[in-house]
């Protein structure tokens, strides 16, 4: 095989690029699953605490009719309501993992769609290297956290929860 033919064959052979892309996609799916695990556990714990707090408020409310218990029960109810508000706020924050995971997987879905298109048209030859890079770059821009981008770059990435309160006023 002449050197020009060999070079053309390397450029148009989609298999190594496809293998790399599939490995990157699989790593992203693993990360998406890891990132959703902790919030789901926290959400479950918040719901559990809400149930327990409601139960103690109910018990305190039942004791309100007892004159000797009134003051203590009212304090208990107030404390329970404050506790409920705290757990509800925590649940509101953790439930948003679902939006993040949906976004992450949607970007990944588009990436895999792009891989499919590339593989289907690879035989047309020429320019595939750029198209692989374009596809990867687009995913990199659309990913929503540094840990996801590290994962795409083949670096070890740990599930990360961005701290809430990232607010920027222009």
């Amino acid at each position: 095989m002449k050197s020009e033919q060999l070079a053309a064959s390397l450029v148009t052979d989609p298999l190594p690029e496809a293998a790399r892309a599939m490995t990157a996609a699989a790593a992203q799916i693993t990360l998406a699953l890891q990132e959703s695990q902790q919030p789901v556990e926290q959400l479950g714990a918040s719901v559990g605490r809400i149930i327990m707090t409601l139960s103690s408020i109910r018990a305190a409310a039942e004791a309100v009719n007892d004159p000797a218990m009134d003051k203590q029960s009212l304090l208990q109810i107030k404390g329970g309501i404050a506790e409920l508000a705290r757990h509800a706020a925590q649940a509101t924050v953790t439930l948003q993992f679902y939006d993040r995971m949906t976004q992450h997987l949607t970007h990944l879905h588009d990436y895999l769609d792009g891989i499919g298109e590339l593989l289907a048209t690879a035989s047309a030859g020429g320019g595939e290297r750029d198209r692989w890079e374009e596809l990867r770059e687009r995913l990199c821009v659309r990913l929503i956290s540094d840990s996801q981008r590290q994962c795409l770059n083949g670096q070890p990435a740990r599930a990360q929860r961005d701290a809430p309160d990232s607010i920027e006023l222009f």
Partner: protein
Amino acid sequence: MVGATLQSAGYEVLTANDGDDALRVAQSGQVIDLVITDVNMPNRDGISLVRELRLLPQYRGVPLLILTTEASTERKLAGKQAGATGWIVKPFNPESLLSTVAKVLG
């Protein structure tokens, strides 16, 4: 959750199912003091919604907040150029959201 958070603080909330629906609600003739939109929505994305709203005379001075999972600098810049007032990355904390809303409503 955004609606419930705002309603719990006494705000009246109108909701829309997607970007086009939001534009319809915005032009329904009701007085709207603040718009909070996601970026990724069916039919019309949030940045396009902000751009369209800013073209309407009644929305030139209305705070338009973007609440999204997207945190990239490029997307934020696109939102800013479209006319957004601010960019909030999910997960949001209810108290912080309420204090931001109070701040932009002045």
